[in-house]
Structure formats: C-alpha cells, structure tokens
C-alpha cells in the first residue's frame, strides 16, 4: 500500500497516528458507486493539496476525527482508507 515518493510516503489517512498530519494527494474512487462521496469530501474541504491533521480515532476501527481547514470532521473508517495522504516518515 505504501509508495515511496521523494522522501515522503503516500499512505491512507486511516494509518496516521493520533496528532500526525499529512497532505491529501488523491482520493481513491469507490467501485460502482458514482462519485458522490468524493464530491462530498471535497465540498467539506478535503481536496488534493490540503493539510489534514488526525486528532484521534475511535476504538475498534471506529471513525477518525480530523482537522481540516479550521473545521473538525468525523470520517468513517472506510472513507479514511480511501483518502491517500503524503507524510514525512523517516
């Protein structure tokens, strides 16, 4: 799942630790479901190039709480799996 990209790694948002930030690189489309959910995410400010900070995730693979463009959002785990972000990882 991980891809090396000039020192930065591209990982799903759901793999970020609490407090870690990443920059959105792309949103994986969902098979056979149109693009409604992508549109929704983007309307809420999750567009490529946006910085996202993971605040925490609910236990047992629950939703993820993120900060994006000054607002606080909750995303279902499946949704967070489809948002790919670039992070600095040594």
């Amino acid at each position, binding site marked *: 799942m991980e891809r090396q990209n000039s020192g930065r790694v591209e990982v799903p948002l759901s793999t970020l630790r609490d407090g870690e930030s990443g920059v959105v690189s792309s949103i994986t489309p969902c098979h056979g479901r149109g693009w409604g959910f992508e549109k929704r995410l983007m309307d809420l400010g999750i567009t490529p190039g946006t910085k996202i900070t993971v605040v925490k995730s609910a236990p047992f693979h629950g939703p993820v709480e993120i900060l994006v463009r000054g607002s606080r959002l909750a995303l279902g*785990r499946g949704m967070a799996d489809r948002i790919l972000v670039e992070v600095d990882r040594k």
Partner: protein
Amino acid sequence: MREKKLVIALAGNANVGKSVIFNYLTGLHQHIGNWPGKTVERAEGTLHFRGYTIDIIDLPGIYSLSTYSLEELVSRNYIAVERPDLVINVIDASVLERNLFFTLQLIELETPMIIALNQMDIAREKGIEIDIERLEKILKVPVIPTIATKGVGVFQLLEKAVEMIEKGTIKPAKIEYGGEVEEKVNDLVKMLEKLQLKYPPRYVAIKLLEGDQEIEQKVNWISPQIVSTAKEIAKEIERLHGHSCPTVITSERYEVAGCIAREVQRLVVPAKPSISEKLHNITTHKIIGYPIMISLLLLIFYLIFTFGNYTSDLLNNILYGYKPLFTDLFGSGFLGTIVWGAIEGVIAGTTIALPYIVPFYIILYLLEDSGYLSRIAFLMDNVMHKMGLHGKAFIPVMLGFGCNVPACLGCRIMETERERLIAAFVSTLVPCAARSVIILGLVGAFMGIQWALMLYIIDLLIIFSLGRLAFKVLPGEPTALIMEMHDYKLPHFGTVLKETWFRVAEFIKIAFPLIIVGSLAIKLAESFGLLEPIATILSPVTVTWLGLPAVTGITLIFGVLRKELTLVMLATLMGTANFAIVLTPVQMFVLALVAMLYIPCVATIAALVREFGWKKASFIAIFEIAFAIILGGVTFRLLTLANI
C-alpha cells in the same frame, strides 16, 4: 396602499445559526412544509418591516450548490430560478474558510446577497479576529457581524437587507480562479454569452467544467456543440493537473476561499483550551467517552419515561374523569358508545403524544443544537456499521425502546432516504415500553425472567439480521459517516421550543385522525357483535398455526391501537389476570413473541406514513405481520417439540 412584497432567502452551511436568525426574524409567523414533490423541508415565514411584507425562506443547510443531495438541488433551483429579491448568506465566523467556499458559489450564481457573519462570539473564543471591512471589499458584498443566539446584529441585518434591495443591488465581485483555469472558464463564457440562458454565463461555464448533469442537459438543448467543447476543455485541464476536472475546480475554489480567509482573519491561539474544547475531548475520549454517553442516555431515558408515565397517567385520569359527564349527555346507548369510542381515540393519542413526544423533541433538539448528537454518532458509528447504517442511526434505535413514534420521526437526522427508511424499519422492531409491559407482564411474571430475557435477545438478533437484510436488499449506496463536529455551544432555547412545537403539531395532524378512525372501527365492530366472528375467521392463524386460544385474535386486533391492550384485553376477555390458568407456557411465549413483532401500533404507522408515505408504511406493516406469524408458528412447533 397595499404593502410591497419582498422575498429574502437564508442560505448557508448546516449549524451556522440560520434557523436561529430565521426565528428571530419571523417569530411565530412560520409555515413549515415540504418543497413541492420533495421530501426536503421548506420553512417559510413572514414579517413586516418599513412598509414591506417580507417573506423569509430558510433554505436547507448545505455545503455546496451541486447536485449531491436533494437539499442542494432544491436550494440551487430556488436561488437560480425563482430568484428571491435577496439572499442572506449566513456564515460561521469560526470556520470562515469552509463557509466562504459556499459564499463563492452564491457569488458565481450572481444573486444579490449580503452576508451575516454569525457566531462572532465562538470565533472570538477560538482567538479568531476578522477584518470585516476588508472582507466586504474583497467580496463587494455587505457583511454584518451577528451573534444570533443573543439577537446581536439581527436588526442591522434586516435593515441592511432592505437597504440593499431598495438601492438596487450592487453586483458581487467576480472571483477569479488561478491561471489557466480562469482562462478556460473565460473561453467558455464568451461562447455562452451569445446564448440566451436563464443562468449567468460564468456560472454555467463553471458548472459545465464541473460536469454538472443538470446544467449539461439544459445547455445541450440549445447548443450541443458548447457541451462537447466544455468536455474537451475539461479533458485538457485533467491532463494538465492530473486530477479530474471537477476536483480541480473544487480545489481552485477552496484555494480562493483559503486566500480570502487568511487575508481577513487574524488568529491568536488562546493560551489554554476553551471549555468547549475540553468538553469535546472528554466526551469523545476513547475510554471515558462511552460511560459518559451511556449514563447521559440512561438519564435522559429515565427522565422522559418518568415524566411521560406520570403525565400520561395524570392526563388519562383527568380525561376519563369526564366519562360520567359524557354518559349523562349522550347516554350509554349505541350513539353514546360510538362517540365515546372516538373520544377514547383522542385520549389515547393525547396520552401518547404529549407526555412522551414533547420532552423527547425538546431533548433531541437540545442535544443536536449543542453538538452532542454528533459526538454520539462518532462513538457509535462502528456498531451501527454492522447494519449498514452509520453512527447517527443509533439515536432513533435507542429511542425506540421508549416509544417507536419519536424513533421513526427521529430518523430524519439520517442523510439519505434509504438510510432513513432502514433506520425507521429497524426502530419499529425495537421493543417499546408498551411491548415491555407484555413481555414482562406475561412471560416474565408467569414463566420466569430468563424467558423474558430470551425474548429481548431474540428481538435484538432479529433487529440485527433484518437490518442487515434491508441494507442488502434496498438499492442505493450505503453512506459512510462524513460529519462535521461543530464546536459545543449553548443551545438557543427559543428555537428548540419552536422546532418542538412544529414537530408535535405535525404529528397530531397525521396521527390523530388515524387513531380516532382506528378506535371507532373497533368500537363499531364490538357493538355490532363482530368481534366473535372475527376471532373465528382468524382462528386458522391463531389456533391452528400459532396454537393460541381463539380469543387472542381479538386481543391482537386491539393491540394495534396500543400494544399493551393485547394483555389488558386478554385479561378482560378471559375473565382473569392469572394467565397461568388459561394459557400454557408455550402459548404465553408465542403470544408475547407475536405481540412484540406483529405490527407497529397505529401511532407508529402514522409516523411512518408521515415520513415515508402510505406505500412504504403499509409494506413495513404487512411485512411485520407476516414475519411475526411465520416466526410465531415455527417457535410454537419448536417449543412443543422441545416439550416445554
């Protein structure tokens, strides 16, 4: 001279205080209905100001003007086609960037507008200061700072709105996108300017690049060539940026919103976290978030049902106290019995609706307004996902344990029709207080508490599997949780009470006629001596298949009115409340099981009709009857085989 009429629409994101402003402006002169042919709510109110009669339309809270949801479509068509005299864009000063994203789309529509920069107090608490003059200059739109919950700035807002309409409106600034996207938009605008379109050319150009199907169709009627040119341009943009064209446009728009926000706001992060921040951290905490939620819910539950039981009994006693007076007036003959039947319906409705539903709504709106509802959804998302629903659905299901009616009405908090329906269906299977009376009063009392517990477990399993089944069978995509958790704030009590009042009035309108007709029908059947024949007609099902005494056919019919009547009537007809004499343990268990599942009560059916229409409501009712009968019969045979 007749007063001149003006129409002003309120538009903005969800949870920015739009409805508080709406309530301040219109008071009780409100009308809540649906948009024609849509399940989207339409709130409209009037006020008189400076010789004008002003109609205020409160548009649904949305994040964008695309066609993602019905709410967005309704709002967009209203602004673009019906053209109100002015749009008041209510924005949350504490989340400026995201709110400006919506403002920019309103500006693209070239609608005359002003901005209410609301929740200034929350912004200040977060250390955000906004240069209002600068914002006005950039957008070329008047901006009025407001704190709607305290009524601050609402009068100035209205003054400014009327002033703008009288002056004839100033055009908002053209908001330019970055480099070549702006160029491409302009190319399209030049082509579109030649056509006579209802919409502004720049708006159409942007929507075409966004691949908006509704606009595409409309332009295609006039000039298919422009649509194909737009598609080529979109492909070029896609090639240049490496993302789909709608993504690029949305990103660009957010880029502009971000630039404006950064230019006008100054952030002084407060030294210590605010109270709302602390509350958020505690209530969504991985460990202590759950006990807090459970205790709070139990407390609410306890409060609603203590209050409900008490007031329900009180009302019952008062209302039944008039029976002797009534009998004196109408006598106890045929007419008297029938009219009393109708009145009993009203009593049943009143003693259900008022004591339980009113406090339920008040608490629901308090939870929603304060922001706690979204935290519950965050904590419960995981569990509800197993049923194909997301976190928010936990709320109606939980309420169902008290009464299914508010549970069904509470399903409105779900985003899509499909989820509303699944959640409502699941809620009707939850054992409400009345069904608990049957389970505990029959099975619990005469067979032992472990059997009662078993019924609850069976019910939960059924809820879970039927929920999953509905989720698999119903067409449409399951929506994952995408939800804003806005900052905690003190709810505005006036707005909460008004919302409650409108919901209750709505419920009375729908449920009361049905309840009255229902109890009239049963009274009529009773006085014509039809109950016995009905029991006989039903006996193949009740006696042969379910193994119950024939008389249960009658009690189950009464149970449709109010579920606990199943038990009450059984005692009356059997002439004893010691059911151990008249029923075998197997019969008790089967009867309780069937009563638990066989049909939502009349009030719940009314709520289903209100929310989903007759067709879906009857389908749910018929399905549950069939399901209960089949399951009841199978259980009867299994238990008999097991020799219990």
